[in-house]
């Protein structure tokens, strides 16, 4: 019986539950003994010229080792120009990096463009001294008008980068599409608001230079990518750099690679010749770590009166914040997935990217795909409302039928496998949809204060979008029968150590207890991609599997020698882990035996798996919300989901990813928003104001099982990490609107805070 597909609790847990994890701030390695502490001085203005920096008071403060600004950064190469002959930066083929006039510096040079932008760093012997000294660094600012919101950015009245001539680094706005033949056309401008990732561990970096080698410990999702970034930043051969990802307290896409603050810490360590450690505070994190989403959507949907959608147009304006990190790339994914799980004849999608005086935008759980789903799901609901058809029925009528896979969309994506109608039917049955509608009708009839809303969302998403980069695995079996897996993936809560050990046990019959998994150290694993985009099982797990199979074949040869049999007669019993000669039950060799026979290189295989391809998980969610129509308060009562990411390796891990994804998806719809005032001041800059969702706002979730295997890899795996978020946001938003649709409400922008809901109810009542 294979262990794959069974419920296995995590091997990661005992250490985390008893001693606690070792995050960057917990590291007590000898190289960091005596490390000094870094505190950043950050801009309090959204947009300003820097007219002077006076560090004299700070330098005189206790424990201050140095105060550094951009003027001290004279010992690293300038950013490289775009490659010759390649597609121009900002084009669809090369959305990133933008560089040139849009270049983001390490420390601000003459201008700050967002509250929180690093201006200087203070290095002190001890942590507590850092804040004291940072307060004493006197920076003179000449405030400039701030650009906040895409409208202001598009107007160009104030430019963040005067040399650029506009605030629009990328312009591939949507063209028109054919809405003739549509009996019904609905248009709307909607917001997919800016949110903050809020991993419980913020950003943290420690660095030391010794004997010409840089070692960086960083809270990252990608040690190897971080190493390449550092190599580029310092003009070094990657061999001169070691990056270690210790335990990482959450990432959600915002810790892909490492950012300017981390690079500055590494630079400063060399500049002053001392090991350094930097651990940001939460307030720093809320403006210093990249934000997510922040797209304005113009949606237009058209079809027939009996519910068939014929055309859909999505025009995205991506607010990328002050600097285009990944914000320039994300709307390409939004456009790619614009059609959602629907079979729509004409789909037109386009995007523009604008800069604003706010924190830069980057990936956040779903990274461009939640936005696409939220838009098409809103459009479907608006269309359903316009024609007076049940939203679930409209969806069923337009979902790609199961016999049309692989399905190529007008947006250029080819959906591999799916059962979209099956997922919808399953979730409706699981939610008791008809009974819910009946209860809703009863409450409407009675005119209850607390009304019921049912939100239905269907989605498809793209995982392992960068499958051609692949993932690596090295598997070793030792002569004591234990095994080691070196994976290029980089778990920060996903449980890869458990999952990869399960794969080894399934393939080789070596029990999980004898399998150790390592990740995140470029000295041990120089080649790898890391974890984002829900890629790790279908790429990293498959790499482990393939390496296992190679090790197995090496072992077969050795066992055949040892047992003087032909390779064809050798069998591995994966239940017992014994090599046996077929038909000779008395013969057997253990893995320890075989590995001992292996000679100098041992029993080991390395795989860089690049034969994968993007896969398309899908599902449907039903959210049930109660809305107090006198106050606008919303309560999520139930959330039922189908999230189909192919064959499930370990239901425990998959469920956990779904739960976490759903919570963040609901949070965006219900509560969370990073708000800036017109001057670029964040109004939600602490966790007291930024409404990160707690246990009290959520119910237990109802997860339904659906496994439609991927065909591209032997594990049948797609990626589950982001799917829950993608489906949950539109379902939650839809439920809220649905609860008050009988009052005439057609739309409420996210988050559906009580104030917003109340305003929508008031407005609808007043216009009747």
């Amino acid at each position, binding site marked *: 019986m294979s262990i794959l597909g069974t419920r296995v609790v995590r091997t990661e847990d005992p250490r985390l539950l008893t001693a606690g994890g070792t995050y960057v701030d917990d590291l007590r390695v000898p190289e960091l003994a005596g490390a000094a502490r870094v505190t950043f001085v950050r801009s309090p203005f959204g947009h300003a010229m820097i007219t002077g920096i006076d560090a004299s008071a700070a330098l005189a403060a206790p424990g201050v080792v140095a105060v550094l600004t951009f003027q001290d950064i004279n010992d690293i190469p300038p950013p490289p120009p775009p490659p010759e002959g390649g597609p121009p930066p900002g084009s669809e083929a090369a959305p990133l990096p933008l560089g040139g006039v849009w270049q983001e510096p390490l420390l601000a040079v003459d201008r700050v463009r967002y509250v929180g932008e690093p201006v200087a760093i203070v290095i002190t012997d001890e942590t507590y001294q850092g804040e004291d000294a940072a307060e004493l660094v006197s920076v003179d600012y000449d405030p400039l008008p701030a650009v906040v919101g895409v409208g202001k950015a598009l107007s160009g009245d104030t430019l963040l980068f005067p040399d650029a001539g506009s605030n629009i680094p990328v312009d591939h706005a949507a063209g028109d599409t054919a809405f003739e033949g549509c009996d019904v056309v609905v248009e709307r401008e909607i917001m997919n608001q800016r949110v903050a990732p809020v991993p419980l561990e913020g950003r943290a970096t420690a660095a030391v230079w010794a004997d010409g080698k840089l070692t960086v410990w960083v809270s990252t999702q990608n040690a190897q990518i971080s190493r390449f970034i550092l190599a580029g930043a310092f003009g070094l051969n990657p061999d001169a750099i070691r990056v270690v990802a210790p335990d990482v307290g959450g990432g959600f896409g915002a810790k892909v690679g490492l950012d300017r603050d981390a690079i500055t810490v590494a630079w400063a360590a060399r500049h002053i010749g001392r090991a350094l450690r930097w651990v940001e505070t939460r307030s720093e994190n809320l403006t210093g770590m990249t934000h997510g989403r922040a797209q304005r959507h113009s949606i237009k949907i058209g079809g027939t009166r009996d519910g068939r959608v014929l055309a859909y147009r999505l025009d995205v304006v991506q607010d990328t914040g002050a600097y285009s990190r990944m914000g320039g790339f994300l709307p390409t994914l939004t456009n790619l997935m614009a059609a959602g799980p629907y079979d729509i004849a004409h789909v037109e999608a386009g995007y523009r990217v604008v800069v604003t005086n706010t924190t830069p935008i980057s990936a956040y759980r779903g990274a461009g795909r939640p936005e696409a789903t939220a838009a098409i799901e809103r459009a479907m609901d608006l269309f359903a409302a316009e024609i007076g058809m049940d939203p679930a029925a409209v969806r069923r009528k337009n979902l790609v039928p199961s016999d049309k896979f692989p399905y190529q969309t007008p947006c250029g994506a080819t959906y591999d496998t799916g059962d979209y109608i099956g997922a919808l039917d399953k979730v409706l049955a699981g939610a008791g949809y008809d009974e819910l509608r009946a209860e809703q009708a009863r409450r409407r009839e009675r005119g209850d204060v607390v009304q019921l809303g049912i939100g239905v969302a269907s989605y498809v998403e793209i995982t392992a979008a960068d499958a051609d980069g692949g993932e690596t695995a090295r598997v070793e079996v030792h002569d004591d029968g234990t095994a080691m897996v070196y994976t290029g993936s980089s778990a920060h809560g996903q449980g890869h150590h458990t999952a990869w050990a399960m794969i080894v046990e399934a393939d080789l019959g070596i029990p999980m207890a004898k399998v150790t998994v390592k990740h995140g150290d470029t000295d041990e694993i120089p080649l790898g991609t890391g974890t984002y985009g829900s890629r790790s099982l279908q790429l990293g797990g498959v790499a482990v599997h393939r390496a296992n199979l190679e090790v197995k074949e090496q072992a077969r040869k050795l066992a055949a020698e040892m047992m003087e049999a032909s390779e064809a007669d050798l069998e591995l019993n994966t239940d017992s882990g014994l090599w046996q000669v077929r038909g000779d039950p008395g013969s057997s060799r253990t893995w320890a035996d075989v590995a001992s026979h292996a000679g100098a290189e041992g029993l080991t295989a390395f795989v860089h798996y690049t034969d994968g391809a993007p896969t398309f998980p899908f599902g449907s969610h039903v959210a049930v919300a109660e809305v107090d129509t006198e106050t606008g308060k919303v309560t999520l009562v139930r959330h039922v989901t189908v999230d189909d990411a192919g064959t499930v390796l370990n239901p425990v891990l998959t469920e956990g990813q779904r*739960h*976490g994804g759903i919570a963040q998806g609901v949070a965006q719809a219900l509560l969370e928003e990073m708000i800036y005032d017109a001057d670029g001041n964040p109004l939600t800059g602490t966790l007291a104001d930024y409404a990160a969702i707690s246990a009290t706002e959520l119910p237990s979730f109802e997860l339904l099982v659906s496994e439609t295997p991927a065909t591209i890899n032997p594990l049948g795996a797609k990626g589950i990490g982001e799917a829950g978020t993608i489906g949950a946001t539109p379902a939650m938003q839809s439920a809220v609107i649905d609860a008050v649709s009988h009052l005439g409400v057609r739309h409420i922008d996210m988050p559906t805070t009580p104030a917003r809901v109340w305003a929508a109810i008031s407005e609808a009542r007043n216009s009747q």
Partner: protein
Amino acid sequence: MTVNGSAVTAEVADRTLLVHFLRDVAGLTATNIGCDTTSCGACTVLLDGQSVKSCTVLAAQAEGREVTTLEGLAAAGGEMHPVQQAFHAEHGLQCGFCTPGMVMAAVSLLAENPHPTEEQVRTGLEGNLCRCTGYHNIVRAVLAASGQAEGQDSQ
């Protein structure tokens, strides 16, 4: 003060927060810092048996008192506390950063309310944020540790 049963004595700056005393002086780094507005609960420890946010207690305020951190929860022989065991069995942690504070908050919750309802567990954990788990399995873990089963697995 006494930390996990052992006396810890040191001279520290007046403004030293208890969480830093525990991490940097007592060397117990399981307790984490997740915010600066007493919001997230990652720093939760027990002070004389009651859950407190150690980032909002001065070390001086805890002088002469008993502090229990995650590291002090397991039995002397290493067997995990029922709450730790339940978190493991129910997959109540992913990245682990909120976990020490969450576990200590759960221990205190159950000490005051040994058989809570699901709603009481959720409200009882309102001071502890988690970004990874969506709280679903954390709630299951606390209910399991209290001897009550909860809800259902995937159907």
